[in-house]
């Protein structure tokens, strides 16, 4: 009986799962991928904190190259003191060069790894990812959350649309939708979001510049915070958006004309040379902004059609509004489809003082 019990205990002990004790792992916070000098190879960079004592810790980076991300991981594991743990990964960066050749191959491995979250952020960097990860930005990045916080903060309180690993996969797998990712660039002591990288499936095909991020956001999703800079010969100002609602409808079937309607509610926060207390003036400002918004939006949609991509997911809306949707026919007609954009703007109040 005792022997049996002992055997049972031994069995149980062998049944222990693989341990990942917090202080015995290399907690990777950011991953960067670049093109390697060798053909067919990519270069991976990991960024992880080294804890020195309670208050101070430093970010370290390591680079290795290989044909697959699994290979890179093995290479890196051979260099670190503690096994690599990517469960706390919060950002993945790709250099523009690599992105132009396609990133899904790399992402697929990560997608299949149950340890990787879906609320993590992806970004495309103008410079090489290694270059971006190798700096500690005057200790701004001392906890390894700099990149993810940068994107998160901008998505929640500013003009950047809600983009993460999940939205990338969503768009990538969708029949008629293409992914978009934030486009980052290093500038002296900081990294800046300089626009959006637009993709055709997993290959980057172009960018949207900084001024148009907001326009894109209004066409991409509903949101509650954002700001738009407008200018006219006579005046200049800033519109703070309080609410934006998007609606995409087919006007002429099949797949001929689509209208995107955006309802924007906002208030003027900065303006020069005008009296915003006057309803007439406000009306005229409204008109100006509306015109500018519509003009810019048209520019965007035309650009997308020219590249034959659909980051806005118009195709998905069309599918949902068409019985017996024919994907092929739709795709053939997409570039010639008439996409109208209409903004309904309402300025509710203007600043604090009259």
């Amino acid at each position, binding site marked *: 009986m005792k022997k049996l019990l002992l055997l049972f205990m031994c069995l149980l002990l062998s049944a*222990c*799962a693989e*341990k990942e004790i917090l202080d015995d792992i290399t907690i990777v916070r950011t991953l960067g991928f670049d093109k390697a000098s060798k053909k067919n190879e990519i270069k991976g960079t990991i960024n992880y904190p080294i804890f020195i004592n309670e208050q101070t810790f430093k970010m370290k980076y390591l680079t290795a190259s290989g044909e697959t991300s699994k290979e890179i991981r093995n290479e890196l594991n051979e260099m670190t003191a503690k096994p690599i743990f990517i469960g706390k990964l919060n950002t993945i960066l790709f250099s523009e060069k690599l992105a132009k050749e396609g990133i899904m191959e790399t992402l697929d491995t990560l997608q299949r790894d149950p340890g990787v979250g879906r609320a993590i952020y992806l970004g495309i960097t103008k410079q090489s990812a290694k270059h971006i990860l190798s700096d500690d930005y005057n200790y701004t990045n001392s*906890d390894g959350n700099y990149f993810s916080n940068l994107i998160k903060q901008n998505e929640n309180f500013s003009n950047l649309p809600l983009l993460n690993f999940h939205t990338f996969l969503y768009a990538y797998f969708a029949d008629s939708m293409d992914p978009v990712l934030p486009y980052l660039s290093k500038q002296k002591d900081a990294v800046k979001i300089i626009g959006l990288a637009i993709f055709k499936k997993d290959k980057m095909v172009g960018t949207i510049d900084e001024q148009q991020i907001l326009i894109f956001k209004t066409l991409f999703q509903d949101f509650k915070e954002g700001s738009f800079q407008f200018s006219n010969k006579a005046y200049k100002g800033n519109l703070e958006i309080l609410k934006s609602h998007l609606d995409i409808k087919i006007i002429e079937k099949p797949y001929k004309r689509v209208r995107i309607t955006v309802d924007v509610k906002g208030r003027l926060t900065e303006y020069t040379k005008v009296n915003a207390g006057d309803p007439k003036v406000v009306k005229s400002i409204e008109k100006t902004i509306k015109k500018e918004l519509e003009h810019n939006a048209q520019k965007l949609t035309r650009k997308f059609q020219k590249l034959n991509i659909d980051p806005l997911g118009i195709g998905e809306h069309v599918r949902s509004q068409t019985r017996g949707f024919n994907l092929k026919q739709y795709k053939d007609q997409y570039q010639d489809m008439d996409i109208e954009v209409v903004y309904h703007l309402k300025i509710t109040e203007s600043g604090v003082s009259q």
Partner: protein
Amino acid sequence: MRFFKTEKSVKSNPAVEQKENKHLDTNILWQETGISDWESGYIESLISQERFNKEVLRFLQDHQQLSSKEMFEQLPFGNKYWEDEPDNKTINEMILQGCVALKKRSSSGMLFIHIMKEEMARSINVPEIEFSVIGPKEAFNEELETNLLLIQKRLPTSALQIEFIEIGLRTKTKVAVLYLKDIANEENVETLKKRLAGIEYDHILDSSYLIQMIEDNKMSIFPQFIDTERPDRIVASLIEGKVAFLTQGSPHGVYGPVSILEFFAAFDDYFLSWHIASLFRLMRMFAVFFSIFATPIYVSVITFHPELIPDDLLSTLTTSRTDIPFPPVLEALFLELTIELLREAGARLPTKVGQTIGIVGGIVIGTASVEAGLTSNVLLIIVSLSALASFTTPVYRMSNAIRLVRFPMIILSGFWGLLSLALGLMMIISHLLGLTSLGRPYLAPIYPPILSDWKDSFIRLPFYVQKKRPKQLMVKEKQKMSWWKKRDIDEFE
């Protein structure tokens, strides 16, 4: 002291009985009284010499002409007993209970008078374990008589039944079973009486002996009866329809059937306003869960699921663990054991020294072991908090059980982290589901779900809502209150 001439309620050890029957006890002092031909027998330490001399002997002196039977009839004592032809066993029994045996040499009849010495019992003290700020401050003492008085005083009703049983082959401890005839469920009463009567054990020194012997599941670490030092708590339980018993020599009354939630209800709760009482109760329940699961959750997250840790805590947790040689499971077990050591040392030592040990242990050892890099400070916080939480349970037996349950949970969390912890939780629940107290389900108002009993379980609703006794007890009279009317001041005008 009440004098019991108990019926043969106890099966006694035959070997002992035979020996007892042969001879008279050697401690019995047999002597001539010097008054006609009366002789007396008693044990000196048991009886009150003063009363014997002043009352018994004087009466004998004054009525020398009476025969022994007549003497028995005329003696002005309440506790007297006549035996025509006593055998040695009866004589032993009676005298050992504190009687004086009187016999005329000429006749075979013997008369017994109970004049036991008034004991130097402890006076009625303030409850120490179940102290309450508001409310009565009387506690039981070791004297069954006093304890019964404390209860009868509060329950002047003829429905209160007190039945005596003698338990313990050698100690012959008197146990009083109490219940209210018109309320308590007969089945519960019978179960308790049957179980008590079935005990064959040499010595019963305290009611806790009995609790352990009559529990439904003796293998379980969860207590299935509540013992209390407060007479008011016993009275409240009797009125609810429960059955209680008091033991000679024990300052604790015991009652049942109980459900698990009652172990987290302090009797204070009834003295405070119901909002506050409810808050306290919920807090205690939370404390129990915290106490059992906080350390295991920490262990499993740190060992198996670092993904779960929010970004902001990552650095704190990691740095607190660097340079610690043990895996988290061992570290947690080590710390838990340390806390238990401190508690045990504090409990064994006299109060004042015990306090010092607590402080020295808590502060000095804690700080030192963190600085020495033996334990992480986060774990230290968690372990001491969960120890603290386990002390909030009002019933001592339960808080011990909770402390014990923690250890298997910590060990389990070392296997597959949260997964095995969830299984552990189910293990505890399935064990509790199988438990009964006096044959009634232990998890009663929760499962089987009796919503109407929830008024006084996790929370305590105001008295006017609690019109009925708990359904789970299956009492005879369900209504606790026949009417309740809100009266405004204006009505008295």
